[in-house]
């Protein structure tokens, strides 16, 4: 059976396990290590490489600004989509819009961005703001209603951020540059549109300084675990990353996502749904070095593994089988988070990926990242109907409504 099934690789320092620094050999402070990782994933036909990012440290590993890193990787890769992470409570939407648009130019149509609202104490301190949310673990331990109430404001800001970014990407029509000698005009100003956006959290008046990026609208990713984030994804994103097993079964989450999409009245191109999984790939030939032993080694180095997403651990054969089962449920893709960046990525590429190809997961064709991810071309919202529309205001509807 063949299908359109996308594969993403999520890079986070030495790995997603806190013990990866001690156990692995990936050196996140070394640019060459990132180039090697991106090139290996690129050659293997992995669809996107996502880079985790925050103004606060991600564990003890070094972390580059993800926009600088992906722009640096762009000319060194050829096909892979590059996905930096923008924290909507900390950054300027204007700078984010031009940074992603520039990445789309430097990568020739391979840019995307993941929007996260962020706003936990340590990262908010970096912009001099005190926060009600201590850290993700504490926040998630709260009763759902209280958590949703606490984050409602953040998500309201995130929705505005996303809207401004999309308006800025579209603020130039594709053919705004005319170089008309007869009238001495470089551009047709009728084809440039000021967003004139006024929101509750901020206002942005003028058009982008960067012309519309090659993809028009680079794909927007969002990781979502609960109701408000599901609605946020339905309003802002092209691809949502969900975490079955930790937040309910895949079926339950898909039902909640569908309810969220209908609550915000998403029309047009549906949200692509990818699952997000940690992976650990054990050596099939070494009986002593099985998945459990490897996890124990990591736990010993970095403490017990806790994650917002599930873990697929096993031999390459077992991991591939599990991923193909997930594919068969009809979801659109998977993003894998290697527990140890170097070891698990290498094993994924050399051992798991060939089995997925044998199982019918083909390397996607397409002129740019949008096409390869199965997204429709992005018409410009200032002159035509955009790929999708939704009701932004309903993202942060009252908690009563959410629990109803």
């Amino acid at each position, binding site marked *: 059976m063949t299908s359109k099934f996308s594969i993403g690789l999520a890079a986070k320092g030495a790995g997603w396990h806190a013990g990866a620094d001690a156990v692995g050999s990936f050196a996140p402070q070394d640019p060459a290590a990132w180039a090697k990782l991106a090139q290996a994933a690129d050659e293997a036909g992995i669809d996107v490489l996502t880079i985790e990012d925050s103004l606060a440290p991600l564990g003890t590993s070094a972390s580059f600004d993800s926009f*600088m890193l992906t722009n640096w990787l*762009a000319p060194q890769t050829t096909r892979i989509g590059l996905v930096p992470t923008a924290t909507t409570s900390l950054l300027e939407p204007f700078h984010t819009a*031009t940074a992603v648009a520039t990445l789309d130019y430097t990568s020739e149509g391979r840019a995307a961005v993941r929007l996260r609202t962020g706003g936990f104490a340590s990262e908010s301190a970096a912009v001099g703001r005190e926060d009600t949310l201590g850290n993700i673990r504490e926040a998630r331990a709260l009763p759902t209603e209280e958590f949703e109430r606490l984050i409602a404001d953040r998500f309201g800001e995130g929705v505005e951020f996303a809207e401004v970014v999309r308006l800025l990407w579209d603020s130039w029509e594709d053919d705004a540059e005319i170089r008309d000698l007869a009238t001495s005009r470089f551009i047709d*100003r009728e084809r440039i549109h000021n967003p004139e956006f006024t929101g509750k959290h901020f206002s942005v008046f003028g058009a982008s300084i960067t012309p519309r990026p090659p993809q028009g609208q680079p794909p927007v990713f969002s990781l979502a675990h609960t109701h408000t984030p599901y609605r946020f994804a339905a309003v802002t994103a092209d691809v949502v990353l969900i975490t079955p097993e930790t937040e309910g079964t895949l079926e339950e989450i898909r039902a909640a996502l569908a309810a969220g999409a209908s609550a915000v009245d998403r029309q047009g191109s549906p949200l692509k749904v990818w699952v997000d999984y940690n992976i650990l790939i054990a050596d099939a030939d070494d009986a002593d070095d099985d998945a459990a032993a490897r996890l124990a080694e990591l736990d010993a180095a970095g403490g017990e593994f806790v994650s917002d997403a599930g873990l697929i651990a096993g031999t390459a054969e077992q991991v591939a089988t599990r991923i193909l089962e997930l594919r068969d449920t009809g979801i659109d893709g998977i993003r894998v988070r290697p527990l140890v960046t170097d070891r698990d990525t290498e094993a994924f590429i050399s051992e798991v990926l060939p089995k997925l190809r044998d199982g019918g997961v083909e390397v996607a064709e397409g002129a740019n990242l949008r096409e390869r991810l199965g997204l429709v071309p992005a018409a410009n919202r200032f002159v035509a109907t955009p790929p999708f529309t939704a009701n932004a205001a309903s993202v942060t509807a009252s908690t009563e409504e959410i629990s109803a």
Partner: protein
Amino acid sequence: MSEQHRQIHFAAHFPGVNQQTIWSDPNAGSQIEFESFRRFAEIAERGVMDYIFLAEGLRLRERNGEILDLDVLGRPNTVSILSALAAVTKHIGLVGTLTTTYNEPVDLARQLRSLDVLSNGRAGWNVVTTTNAFTGANFRKGDHLPYPERYLRAQEMISALEQLWETELGETTTLDSRYFQATATQTLPASPQGRPVLVQAGASGEGRDIAARNVDVVFSMFGEFAEGQKFRTDLDERLEHFGRNAEDLKILPAITLAIGDTEAEAQERAQAIRHAQVSGPNAIYFMEQIWGRELGGVDPDGPLPDFDPVPPTHATGRVPHYGDVEERTALVNQWRAESEAKGLSLRDLAVREYGRPSLVGTPEQIADEIIRRVDERACDGFTLVGDIVPDGLAEFVDRVVPILQERGAYRTEYPENATLRELLGSAAAPSVPLETPERV
């Protein structure tokens, strides 16, 4: 190589969104495709230059409330494009203009440190303070910084970035100053040059003090000989005041070029370039900046308007170069007299006035002049502004640079693994500790 010359430094300015850049020429390429930037960088690196330089403007320029359509428009995100260029260059420095007004220190410090580490010690920051309601309308805080405070925030920003750049991976530091209160943990290793090179472009006394106190290079507009020497003397005095060595601050004024096989040919070329830069509509636009008002019905090929300049009534997102209304009126009166005496049209005058200062001549003449200016400390080299993207500096690199090298005034190759600071040959200014004045 018998004579001893002071060593020349060059920055290559990627032509930007102004009249200088000729888009109507058949050889003019894209202003935005990465290939243009890659080619531009290749040429600058072939010319063994110190750094590539990008300006910044965070709002599309307007004229009377409408987007200006006569000049090149559209540019990439500065730090992003420099990061991409870091991957396709090996030696050349990468300097971006970034405002202290619409950025936050922890984020900016991290972007620049990322670029510095990714480029193996080749990053630089041109510190500008641009603040106005026009640009502020694109940012969260809006028009938050009164113009007189621009350099207060700038100094705190520079000090904050230096403080952040001094921390080691994993180390936490707290900023506590008038404009900035933040706590951040370093997420990056140190770069080979310690911290990015600082460049400054601002003409006021406060701007010059900021330069003398903090930076490695000044990007000035004093490209003529005498004004250059005067500016150098002024900065030397300020440097002494701040306890710094004069040689640790380089001055690289902006300069344009017209090269010919003979002097006459070069003059002709300079004239042709200016004509291409100043179309009829562009001449009107140029003169609107002198008059401070719309000149809608004025004929560019006719005489100067008979009414006088007024204070500007609208923001255009441009640096005001032409002084206050008295200065502009005096200029107009002088031009009127010349126009009558020589029969010059408004466009003739605009063409003549536009695009200076410039180096015009044969390759030998230009090389001689550059050496003279650097030896006599009118500057330390130039920020070269080509008129065509991306190949505008190729002729300079191929015809003038070899002469400078022959005469021993310019490096013939990059030292192995040199950082930008090493290319500039300057010691960084001592960090200025953050004072804790009253908060805003």
